């Protein structure tokens, strides 16, 4: 197909051609960025948790008034919960993934450091790592005699014996603290007064809250501290996925039976907690997809409108061409090629614009740079939309009879 005649025609319709190019460029730029954002959100919602997501439930109870003998109450609770059929393991944890409430502390490699190396979250509770289903990569779990009571440990940090100054950390945190080195046996400081030695490394364990940004999502550690009821702790129960609802009901009933004065403040599966945690991302994904579809639709319809106008305007020229021997296919291809040319110019401009928008978003929304692979997505989408939109008007043009050439309008 010869494109020179097309170009010379377009030069006579500069404004209309420019508008189509502009619309395609804008749509292409927005669609590229929107697809990138959608993918970012999908990726975020898919974030690894490091725990047995579909097997865990959370039950949190609070006592009204002071809790007498909290340690004994905890042991009774745990025993009763373990008796529930289908419950594989139970732990009382200070915090759980995706619950948005967390204890965090600054980590220093040397006590003399003035700026902390990083900020990490702190999981405590007897056997919490094993009940949650975190995977041990190196080292070992804590021994039963290494555990201390949380209240004792926090009220007098200096009295903690060396044997209990140990920690299990995630692989991501180990790599951040000592890139490329074996973290086992190394020590770091919690604040500048208390140091711990790494005895184990788990593959992954997400923080309960991502307030410090997604990059630090995996900076978690586990300390050998025993929790008692109250202190904001929750029971984590591990069971088969299909038993979760039944286990929640049974656990609430068992806890209420042991102490009817308690109020259940949380009862849910960890999957539900996760769904709630990412609800904003899910809503945003839906909205972005809606905008992408609406944009492509509006642009497509716009092309249909303008192409129809163009065909109507050039009926006589088409008739003359047909009379001079052009086939229907020639006319069809003419309009298709014209649209392809305009779309291509629009897409090239759109790429530049898309890059610019991405730079702006990076500046204001802490987004990463858009990988190059997103650019072809916008290009292909707009070429397709353009060709689809122009097909109707182009077919109509190809059906203009040659006899039109002989008529005066």
């Amino acid at each position: 197909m010869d494109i020179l005649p097309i170009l010379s025609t377009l030069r006579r319709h500069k404004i209309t051609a420019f508008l189509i190019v502009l619309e395609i460029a804008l749509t292409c730029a927005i669609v590229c960025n929107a697809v990138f954002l959608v993918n970012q959100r999908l990726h975020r919602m898919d974030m690894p948790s490091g725990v047995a997501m579909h097997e865990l439930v959370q039950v949190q109870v609070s006592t009204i008034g002071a809790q007498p003998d909290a340690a004994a109450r905890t042991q009774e609770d745990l025993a009763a919960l373990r008796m529930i059929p289908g419950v594989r393991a139970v732990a009382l944890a200070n915090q759980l993934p995706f619950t948005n409430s967390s204890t965090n502390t600054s980590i220093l490699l040397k006590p003399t450091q003035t700026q902390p190396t990083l900020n990490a979250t702190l999981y405590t509770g007897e056997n919490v790592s094993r009940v949650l289903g975190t995977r041990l990569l190196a080292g070992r779990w804590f021994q039963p005699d290494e555990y201390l009571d949380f209240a004792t440990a926090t009220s007098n940090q200096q009295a903690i014996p060396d044997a209990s100054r140990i920690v299990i950390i995630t692989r991501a945190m180990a790599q951040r603290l000592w890139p490329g080195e074996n973290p086992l046996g190394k020590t770091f400081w919690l604040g500048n007064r208390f140091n711990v030695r790494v005895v184990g490394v788990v593959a992954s364990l997400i923080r309960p809250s991502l307030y410090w940004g997604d990059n630090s999502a995996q900076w978690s550690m586990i300390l050998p501290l025993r929790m008692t009821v109250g202190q904001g702790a929750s029971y984590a129960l591990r069971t088969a996925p299909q038993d979760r609802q039944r286990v929640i009901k049974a656990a609430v009933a068992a806890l209420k039976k042991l102490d009817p004065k308690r109020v259940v403040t949380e009862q849910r599966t960890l999957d539900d907690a996760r769904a709630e945690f990412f609800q904003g991302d899910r809503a945003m994904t839906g909205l972005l997809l809606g905008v992408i579809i609406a944009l492509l639709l509006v642009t497509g319809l716009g092309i249909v409108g303008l192409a129809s106008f163009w065909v109507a305007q050039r009926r006589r020229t088409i008739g003359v061409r047909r009379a001079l021997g052009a086939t229907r296919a020639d006319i069809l291809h003419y309009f298709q090629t014209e649209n392809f040319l305009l779309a291509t110019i629009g897409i090239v401009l759109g790429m530049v614009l898309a890059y610019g928008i991405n730079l702006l978003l990076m500046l204001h929304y802490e987004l990463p740079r858009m990988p190059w692979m997103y650019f072809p997505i916008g290009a292909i989408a707009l070429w397709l939309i353009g060709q689809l939109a122009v097909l109707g008007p182009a077919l109509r043009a190809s059906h203009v009879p040659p006899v039109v050439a002989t008529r005066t309008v």
Partner: protein
Amino acid sequence: MLAYYLGLALRSLKRNPVLTGLMVLAIALGIGASMTTLTVLYVLSGDPLPGRSADIYYPQIDPRDMNGYQPGGEPADQVTWIDGMNLLRAHRADRQALMTGGSVPIQPTQANLDAFYADARYTTADFFPMFEVPFEYGTAWTAADDEHRARVAVISRKLNDKLFGGQDSVGRTININDADLRIIGVLDAWRPDPHFYDLYQGTYGEQEDVFVPLSTSRDLKLAHNGSTDCWGNGAPSQDKLEQAPCTWLQFWVQLDTPAQATAYKAFLVHYSQEQKTLGRFQRPPNVRLRDVMQWLDFRKAVPDDVRLQTWLAFGFLLVCLVNTVGLMLAKFLRRSGEIGVRRALGAARRAVFEQLLVEAGLVGVAGGVGGLLLAQLGLWLVRRQPADYAKLAYLDPVMLLVTFALAIGATLVAGLLPAWRACRVTPALQLKS
């Protein structure tokens, strides 16, 4: 003349129903999307204390140790118990209140109601007059009640409805965390959005149901919720927070004139200096005194996603407008013959231009109506979201006017180029064929 132009415009729009429909649809979609997101942004960035927010300030000082100190950094977000109490007792502002949030168990006396947890605010007496909190029954507590750790409570209208069927419950008791408190006031409907005085409890969350004097809450060991930021020896247990090096309270003051605000800021610097001399503070004085709107802006109360959505919607509107310019150009130029005849018969270029703009405006009105319907649909969808701000998303009269102004204004702008091009057709050329 306008009536005549309108008649012409209507006839012309009816002649190409598909093209007209496409234009109206594009405008309606663009306006609908923009107004949905703009309304959400407008509602979320609203002033929680209209008319007073400029006089209410959030003082910040920096009591932390030298760990993590960076010159020029921001001071702490909240205050410690000791500093809060010092600033409260200094009485340097017209009004001042120290507060924190929590969650308390309530045991109803009625047998048919189970014990439940309610959101609570532990604060000092000035909270109510300073924020102009409306009362349905009774009154707030006094500074003397704060001093004497009085066992009193103010409850929300919602809780009063639940516990006492909406009757005047002043003088009755409410059991909170195993202690009996006398109800002295019931609030009228009050929900400042955003929840500016404590953003740690959810920016657009529900209002608290129970208000208790801060001193009483410490006596009754009522659990404190929200952010606790500690340094030095780390986090103590809840009942030792008074002595701990931790910030966990919000402190608000009312300063009626700019001169007072300047003086208060100087007082904060002086206080920090004094505490440093005493050895309590280690960092050089670093203070802020932001008013309500500055504080909300600093804390980025409006979610990033909402801003992003607004930009996205306006990008969409731009595409819709470019689309409309193209379609309108096509439509106007198709009538070159007709315009040529009108020009030849004596119509001034200006008259033709005006006539075409009236036609564009008519498309704008239709697009505005469509956009309004779509915006209502959009907001309905937003309200179905589980986000805490979702329930606030309603179109108010201001946004209604903005919708129409935006629709008509945008379409007129879109119509300028096509109308200008069309009114420049040479009459002779059009009449020849």
